[in-house]
């Protein structure tokens, strides 16, 4: 049986099984994990260029729908399904109210998105992924807020997909077929004749993709939804589902607009606008992130800020830009996954998501603390770990185009990301441990295995980025760009300079060893409990000092908030909320028509008739 089709059928069967056995939670979580692993096994059966088509007589004509494998789809499939395995393996021990069968439906839809060859199945999979994730978010921790969050996400994503629907039909009416290949090549052909029509259609598609990855104007739903979604689902939502938008962008970005459209700094102006969308998202995400007090909301802002980085890189559509974008997409999946899994492990043990109530948990959960530390180091782009290579390549890609303003903005976003990562790290793990968490224990064995695996992955892909850069190079050449030169697994070849990551790792390790040796040989130190702290001579017991009072983490960057306050007045989600309320208001007004007494209805009917007659008269 063709393994392409298996990638779709297996998750659906698994989902059905999970739905039936929904009552026995452990069995359902095991089924979810097994389905993910089996799907991964089928993944080995496919190779670039596979094609599977079938016909559907619908809309009166014999529509040809199909699945095809491009290097990009293989890259995305491997990435997302592998992460799914890690997540569902962790979820076996997680008690969050995540419904396994909906996750498997989302998996089926995500495989289908990455493999669809025609617009109908792409839209079919996109909508399927949409509603299964909406229903999933309903089961969040706080039921009223998770409903608001899910409905906000539903409105944005359904609105986005309807704009894509219009785009699909505008396009397919022009070309007559639904297959993506022919449509994109058609767009390229008519590009020189009337570019504005092409831009119109493509922007309709891009609205849907921007909503899904939370890019600037449509990012407002992300914090509400990630903050409220059930804990087991948030890592999948943030790491994997934001990549659909990236995949979507990459369908239409090959329209090399350079030749037909006025260029800015050697870049076609639509790409330039998209790049600015990316950089603004990155800055907005990072700046808003370090003001949050809810840890899930904080990392929600962080995840769509990283999406801004990715979009800024791929919008350049130069060899180094595309490589940087895809590499950052992979790294984002890795470190975002690591951070979110440790956060939900933490929340399941600590019970609250508000950072001001946590603190000092490194004493109780050391392994989670280490994974979180390596996760945020990778997110901040610290060399030996995974995040460094991609962030560094993004800056090189941007600066090689001379886009100085956007690069400085992105660098500010990456420094601001360092801020909120440190804030989360301090507020949650470091500082004073409150007595509420005295009996908090480390995660279960399964949790430990997952965390060790994530640690290994972060370090492995940090040291040997070649394993990720080779498939990316094949993707870049598939898009018709000349890929960057490759020389060995441990090398990252940028435009300005190339770095041997293994040598950096060795040097850092040697420095660490030297540090620990120095630490050992000098005078001994004495371990002291957390109460024995410098309190300017005041004896803590006298003014009954509690660890909560003594932990400083609420409003950590208050001066910076005051500094950036004028810029934050512009509330984008205010716009969407206002729009929602006005629709509700009109609804209330319209409802008045059906007053309930029959005279009104008869007047309406007769009135309608009179209008028709007058209209007939006038026209006559």
């Amino acid at each position, binding site marked *: 049986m063709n393994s392409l089709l298996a990638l779709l059928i297996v998750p659906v069967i698994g989902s059905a099984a999970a739905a039936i056995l929904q009552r026995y939670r452990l069995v359902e979580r095991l089924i979810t994990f097994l389905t993910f692993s089996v799907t991964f096994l089928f993944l080995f059966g496919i190779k670039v260029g596979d094609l599977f088509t079938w016909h*559907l*007589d*619908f*809309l*009166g004509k014999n529509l040809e729908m199909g699945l095809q494998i491009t290097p990009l789809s293989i890259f995305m499939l491997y990435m997302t399904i592998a992460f799914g395995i890690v997540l569902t393996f962790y979820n076996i021990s997680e008690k969050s109210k995540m419904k396994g069968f909906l996750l498997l439906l989302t998996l089926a839809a995500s495989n289908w998105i990455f493999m669809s060859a025609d617009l*109908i199945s792409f*839209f*079919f*999979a996109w*909508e*399927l992924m*949409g*509603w299964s994730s*909406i*229903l999933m978010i*309903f*089961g*969040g921790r706080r*039921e*009223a807020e*998770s*409903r608001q969050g*899910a*409905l906000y996400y*539903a*409105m944005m994503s*359904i*609105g986005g997909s*309807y704009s894509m*629907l*219009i785009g699909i*039909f*505008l396009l*397919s*009416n022009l070309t007559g077929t639904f297959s993506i290949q022919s449509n994109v090549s058609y767009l390229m052909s008519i590009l020189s004749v009337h570019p504005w029509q092409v831009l119109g259609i493509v922007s309709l598609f891009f609205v849907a993709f921007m909503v899904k990855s939370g890019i600037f104007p449509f990012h407002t739903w992300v914090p509400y939804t990630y903050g409220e979604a059930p804990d087991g689902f948030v890592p999948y939502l943030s790491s994997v589902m934001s990549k659909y938008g990236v995949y979507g962008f990459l369908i239409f970005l090959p329209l090399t607009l350079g030749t037909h459209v006025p260029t800015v700094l050697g870049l076609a102006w639509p790409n330039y606008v998209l790049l600015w969308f990316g950089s603004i998202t990155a800055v907005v995400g990072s700046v808003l992130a370090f003001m949050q007090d809810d840890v899930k909301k904080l990392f929600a802002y962080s995840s769509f800020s990283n999406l801004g980085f990715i979009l800024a890189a791929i919008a350049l559509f130069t060899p180094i830009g595309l490589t940087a974008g895809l590499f950052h997409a992979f790294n984002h999946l890795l470190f975002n996954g690591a951070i979110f899994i440790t956060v939900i492990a933490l929340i399941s043990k600590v019970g609250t998501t508000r950072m001001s109530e946590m603190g000092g948990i490194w004493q109780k959960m050391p392994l989670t603390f280490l994974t979180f530390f390596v996760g945020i180091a990778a997110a901040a782009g610290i060399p030996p770990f995974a995040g460094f290579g991609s962030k560094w390549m993004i800056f090189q890609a941007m600066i090689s185009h001379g886009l100085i303003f956007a690069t400085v903005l992105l660098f500010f976003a990456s420094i601001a990301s360092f801020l909120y990562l440190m804030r989360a790290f301090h507020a949650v793990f470091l500082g004073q441990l409150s007595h509420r968490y005295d009996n908090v224990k480390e995660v279960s064995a399964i949790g430990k295995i997952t965390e060790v695996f994530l640690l290994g992955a972060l370090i492995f892909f940090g040291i040997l980025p070649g394993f990720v850069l080779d498939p990316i190079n094949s993707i870049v050449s598939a898009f018709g760009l000349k890929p960057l030169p490759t020389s060995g697994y441990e090398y990252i070849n940028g435009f300005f300079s190339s770095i041997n990551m293994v040598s950096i790792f060795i040097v850092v390790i040697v420095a660490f060893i030297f540090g620990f040796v120095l630490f050992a040989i000098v005078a001994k130190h004495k371990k002291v409990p957390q109460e024995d702290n410098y309190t300017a001579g005041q004896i803590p017991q006298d003014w009954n000092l509690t660890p909560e009072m003594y932990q400083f983490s609420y409003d950590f960057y208050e001066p910076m908030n005051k500094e950036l306050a004028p810029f934050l007045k512009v509330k984008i989600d205010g716009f969407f909320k206002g729009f929602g309320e006005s*629709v*509700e208001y009109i*609804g*209330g007004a*319209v*409802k008045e*028509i*059906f007053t*309930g007494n*029959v005279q*009104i*209805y*008869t007047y*309406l*009917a*007769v*009135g*309608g*008739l009179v209008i*028709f*007659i007058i*209209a*007939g008269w006038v*026209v*006559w």
Partner: protein
Amino acid sequence: MKTYNLAALLVGVPLLMAFSIPLFGFISKQLAKWITVLTLGFEFFFGLYIFLWHIYPFNVIMGNWLPPFGENLYIGPFATVLIILISFVGLMISIYNLWSANHGDVVHFALLFLMFVGGSIGLVSTGDIFNIFIFMEITGISSFALAAYGPERRALGGAFKYLVVSSIGSTLYLFGVLLIYTQLGTLNIAEIAARISQTTSGLLTFAGILLVAGLAVEAELFPFNGWVPDTYTGAVNPVSATLSGIGSVGGVYVLFRILMTVFGKDGNFVSTYGNIDLMALVAILGSATVVIGELSALVQKNVKKMLAYSSMAQMGLVAIGFSIGSKMGSYAGVFQLVNHSIAKAMMFLILGIIVSFGIGEHIEDMKGLWYKSPFLTVTFTIGSLSLLGLPLFGGFWSKFALVDASIQRGGWYDFVIAIVLFASVVEAFYYLRIVGYMFTSKPTSTDKIKVSISPAVPIVAFSILIIAIGVFPQIVGGISWNAAHELTDKMGGYVLNVIPTIVGH
């Protein structure tokens, strides 16, 4: 020829059995209910037989009297689809009634129900505009009585409103028919369709307006659909299921049979004779209905009222589909009609079960249904997702076709489809809000709801059908494509199949 005349049984049997039910009623109330199930079963399988053996289209001359006096039944692809749909929905609701209809006068309920379904089937298959009026009256009367059925006072209010407005509608329709009869001397649709171009256009527009106004009441278009919310919420749940599942089907069929076959002027996009293009007029009314229906449903807090407004809006959607005038448009209309009646009937039945277990109709009472009975929640979710047009469910393909048709038509129809999509985002909001309430909180009292067999069968059948259409749209796709052909290609599809048989006879 033998089977052709049997088709008359399709109309005759339900009416005959309807009036014989009081006799069976004396023997036992249970028997009366079983009679309705059996007759509708017969109807369904007969329709299935016509469809599967592909013996449509054929014409049945009643008693060998030639028009303009005799009537004929024309069972084309459009009529077949609707007959199967009506009989299937009727069958399912009658099975549901075995369990639910036990308070009040069971015999009268069964009589009225069977009369209503028989009348609808007749309405759908008759080939004579005056005969359409007769069947409209039959279904009208039975639906007034059905709407008034049940213990609640609001049922009476709803039924009375429905009575007043639809009587206005039928009188207007009657004037229209008289006008046409005086002009063309015939009542047979095919003959009128052939001779329509001979009369003066002024008279045609006037007759057309009267007919459209009359039929718009039944087809629930904007100015004329005041009665819809009160009647649907007033009526008992199985009755509102019948009204929205079957009643609206008949209404829309007749409206567009008259518009497209009788008044239709062929062209790549069908438009009507006379000065106004009635199709464009119906399109405007349809989009108004959609917007008003969705917006007023948004602020409702009562689930039944929400479903009522939503069915009104869906009918507006179907009207837009047909009024595009292209083959794709009517295809979308038929497909949407089928999906809507299945899904809406199922949701009303589910609501009926929920109400019967003492849980209120308010949206807050839906809290924690997922824990009380996963079966009801899953089926309600399937129904609502299909109405929203999300994949894996029937509604997806019909909405898909609708958007395709209206963009193909282009011009100001892009504006229409933009409004429709906005409205369906609003619709998504309030349906998902209900689903959200069901999924989220663990209720205080975790008393499980045990759904007995007889109400469960129709709901399971409906949801399986929805998913089946969702996964294999060809089930409904093929025949609705032929139905669309029959509507848009007036001469080839309808007239030439009917005239020879009459002349030959």
